[in-house]
């Protein structure tokens, strides 16, 4: 430390005393940096480093934008799909092995779907959404900026089912226990029956092609949403096509040739056809029966009422006259026909009666199971008789037989009465009036059939029948490149500025070090 430096150290602060930074105060080597000179040097080099600052700032801001082009994640659009249809209510039944299981009864009741059950009561295979059939239909007629195949599309679709609250809790609880190495919990976790909500989430990710491929086909954002929308619409069509009962009522009226058939035969055929039409209506679910047409203002229930009216005011009225007056085109032929029908009915009755007698014998001698239950605590044994399923089936079968017998007896009595009347009465020729009335009856019945068929066609085209799934519009949007990189740009800019300032400071500092080294070399000399 020379004399001048000593004097400066002794000066009080605030009196133009230069700030000195002592990097190392060693007896052997010591470097003192004068910050005043550092800043002076920086000021001198400001002409260059101002531009370095601008350059670093520009690089810092632009680098994230460049990076975004390579690292941006492909857009993913998602849609929530909710199932909307009615499913048959299952009932508990014991199977052959004696296990209880849920089955669909012959005449089931319907309720809105609450889980992932298909409209026919089986488990819904949601993966059909990615089937070639559905995807091909979805892509058909779709103009896209790039061509994608159904296989490529299937690879980018993800389906996520949603567990019910209860199942989720069960799984979480069992998973916790399993983690704690609880063997039974682990086993239960494997076998636990999980229930799902009646909705699932479908996502479609942009970038189509091989998984490792660098050159993936990219669609525009709106195209991606459109593709998912079409896929879900196609899946809905698939569900309708697979599960909807779009069977129209059978046209049994157009084949009734009233000119060729005898009047009573024609009336019988019309009655049978009307009965079939009525069964068709009653077989439909309550929701379908309550649908009101926008064309006629009627529901299927209304049509069923009209059917009953037609039967009463047209058919029965004419039949009463024809029966009473023995109106026929050919008495002998009609009698032969009825006698044949009577014989058939009697044969059927004999067969069922035989069946009834046999079943009665079986039921009388049938031995049901005797069940013994031993009580663990008291060592006592209790017993009860348990009817087997077969026994119960036999009992119910016998009831059905009685019903059939009742129907057949009524038919036989009717035929016997008809035959007796026709044999004793003098046959009446078919008058023009009867012909006209018969034609009107057939017209009324045909009109009824046409009305019901049109009504059903309208239902089959309506959202009531064609909406098996309700889905939200695919959601998801790529952020603008400026918006997406804004934060990174700011950070990059700050880093650039800091870097430039650092360089600038170092540039101001460097002469101080070189001066110190030179001074040391001079002192050494």
């Amino acid at each position, binding site marked *: 430390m020379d004399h001048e430096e000593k004097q400066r150290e002794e000066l009080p602060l605030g009196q133009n005393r230069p700030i000195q930074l002592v990097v190392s105060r060693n007896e052997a080597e010591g470097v003192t940096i004068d910050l005043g000179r550092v800043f002076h040097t920086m000021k001198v080099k400001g002409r260059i480093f101002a531009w370095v600052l601008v350059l670093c700032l520009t690089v810092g801001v632009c680098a994230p934008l460049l990076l975004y082009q390579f690292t941006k994640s492909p857009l993913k659009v998602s849609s929530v799909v909710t199932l909307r249809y009615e499913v048959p209510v299952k009932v508990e039944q014991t199977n052959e092995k004696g296990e209880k299981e849920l089955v669909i009864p012959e005449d089931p009741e319907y309720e809105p779907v609450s889980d992932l059950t298909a409209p026919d009561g089986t488990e819904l295979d949601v993966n059909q959404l990615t089937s070639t059939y559905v995807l091909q239909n979805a892509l058909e007629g779709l103009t896209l900026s790039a061509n994608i195949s159904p296989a490529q599309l299937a690879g980018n679709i993800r389906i996520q089912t949603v567990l019910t609250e209860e199942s989720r809790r069960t799984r979480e609880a069992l998973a916790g226990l399993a983690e704690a190495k609880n063997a039974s919990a682990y086993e239960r976790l494997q076998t636990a029956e999980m229930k799902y909500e009646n909705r699932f989430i479908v996502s479609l990710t942009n970038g189509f092609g091989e998984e490792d491929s660098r050159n993936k086909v990219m669609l525009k954002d709106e195209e991606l949403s459109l593709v998912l929308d079409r896929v879900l619409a196609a899946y809905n069509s698939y569900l309708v096509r697979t599960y909807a009962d779009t069977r129209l009522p059978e046209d049994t009226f157009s084949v009734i040739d009233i000119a060729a058939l005898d009047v009573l035969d024609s009336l019988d055929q019309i009655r049978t056809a009307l009965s079939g039409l009525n069964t068709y209506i009653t077989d439909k679910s309550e929701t379908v029966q309550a649908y009101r047409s926008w064309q006629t203002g009627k529901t299927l229930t209304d049509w069923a009422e009209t059917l009953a009216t037609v039967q009463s005011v047209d058919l029965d009225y004419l039949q009463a006259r024809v029966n009473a007056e023995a109106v026929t085109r050919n008495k002998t032929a009609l009698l032969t026909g009825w006698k044949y029908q009577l014989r058939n009915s009697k044969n059927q009755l004999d067969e069922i009666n035989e069946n009834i007698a046999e079943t009665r014998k079986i039921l009388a001698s049938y031995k049901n199971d005797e069940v013994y239950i031993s009580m663990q605590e008291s060592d006592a044994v209790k017993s009860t008789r348990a009817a087997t399923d077969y026994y119960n089936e036999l009992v*119910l079968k016998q009831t059905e037989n009685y019903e059939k017998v009742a129907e057949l007896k009524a038919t036989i009595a009717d035929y016997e009465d008809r035959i007796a009347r026709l044999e004793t009465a003098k046959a009446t020729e078919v008058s023009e009036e009867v012909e006209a009335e018969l034609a009107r009856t057939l017209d009324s019945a045909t009109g009824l059939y046409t009305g019901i068929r049109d009504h059903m066609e309208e239902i089959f085209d309506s959202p009531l029948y064609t909406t098996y799934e309700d889905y939200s519009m695919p959601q998801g949007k790529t952020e603008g490149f400026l918006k997406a990189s804004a934060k990174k740009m700011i950070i990059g800019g700050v880093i650039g500025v800091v870097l430039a300032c650092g360089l600038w400071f170092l540039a101001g500092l460097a002469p101080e070090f070189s001066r110190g080294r030179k001074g040391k070399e001079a002192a050494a000399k």
Partner: protein
Amino acid sequence: MKGTTQTHWLRTTLIVLIVLGLIGTALAAVMFTREKARTSASATLQLSFSGSAEGRAPNGDPFDMTGITTDEVLNAALEAAGLSGSYTAAQLRENLIVTGVYPENIVKRMTEYVSLLDANTELQSTLSDYHATQYTVRLYNDFDTGLSGVKLTGLLDEILAVFRNWFAKHYTPAAMVNHTAEELATYDYSQQLEMLKEDSSQQQRYADELETLAKDFRYGSEKTTFADLGVKYQSLDSEIDRLSATITLNALSTDRERLQKRYEMEIRNQQYRLTSLTEELTQIGEQVDAYEKEGIIYVSAGGTLREAGGNTKKTYDQLVAKRKAVTDEIAAINAKIALYEARLADMSETGTAAGKTTGTTEETADGDGDTAETAGTAETAEETADQMIRMTEEEQEQLRASVEAGLQSVITRKATIDGEFAGMLKAYSEQEINTRTVSAAGAKVQKASLLSGAFAMRALRTAGPLCAVGFMVCIALLIISRLKEEKQRKGA
């Protein structure tokens, strides 16, 4: 000197930026035009009728927007736009896209839904119950590049206007089709009443349904509600019943004999059925009595109760239910038989009355033909008998005329109520679906031009990096030149 150098560099940088900017823009323009972006017209369709937010149309049924792409709508729109010969419905259908618009928070919820494994019930119901009420309808022009933007927008406007009418037709309650007066006239009195009764009860049920759907709806100066209409049909029903009673009790018919045959046939048929059902009931009854229900034992094991046995419960219940069904059917048949028998009795009473009158008259005529003295008495008796027959016939005729008038009055009254119902339905439809509740707005054309925002973005994305690189190079060169100057200055 220093100032001149700086200006020189700044000028050079500016020139480089401009040149690169121009190159980038030109490049973007080439790429943009080569992409052949499609021209389209779009509009927003807003649904604000009651129930739209719940996905229910004014008639209470679920609705969708697929109707906009039907042949019916598109052909009508083409015709309205005067383009029916130029394009087909199929061409438009391929280019028409309808997308629902969801609010921002719903979008967020939906996208976050996947990760929210602990989503609460409220959130889930919000998601599943949400129905879009705003739709963006976009018509792309791939079918004629020569079609102007104005015409394309006009066509879209027509499609939306036609769709509104289509929507009103398909999704609002329609007037019910009933039997016509001409149709009724071809039937007998009782048949006509049966048909009228059917129509009236159906209309009443319809009015009741609508009352539930539109409680607040009032029509006309009398502020009629659908419930009022239901009451009117109820009153019509009572009138029909009264008329039916008169016809039945007096056995009035256009063909009395035939009516009698009909009743007899009904009784006969019902009796056959009754006989067989009674037999069935006896057999099922025996079955129920013979069926032994088994005992149920509850076993307590491990703190839980387990049931043993009890397999017969279900079968026994089914048997009992069957017996009840047969009993009910028998009761219904008995009621029918009683009704027809009563009708026949009414008919025979009326017939006996007429027959008795005729018989008495004939007897009087026969007994008084022997002497001349009694000839005058006989004539008087014949006159009295004729008078009695005439009176009966007159009475019958009067009754018939009165019934026919009553029937006509019922038909007319029903037609009036039906007319009012149709008017109400029309008014309800217009109230629910109109230009305000199904409104289309903001029809505009998006054309791929070099003045569009899409091109500006493209230019920015293409020219931006070029300009940035150019700028950086210029600055780097400037720095190098300054460093050289510095060195030279130091050297000097």
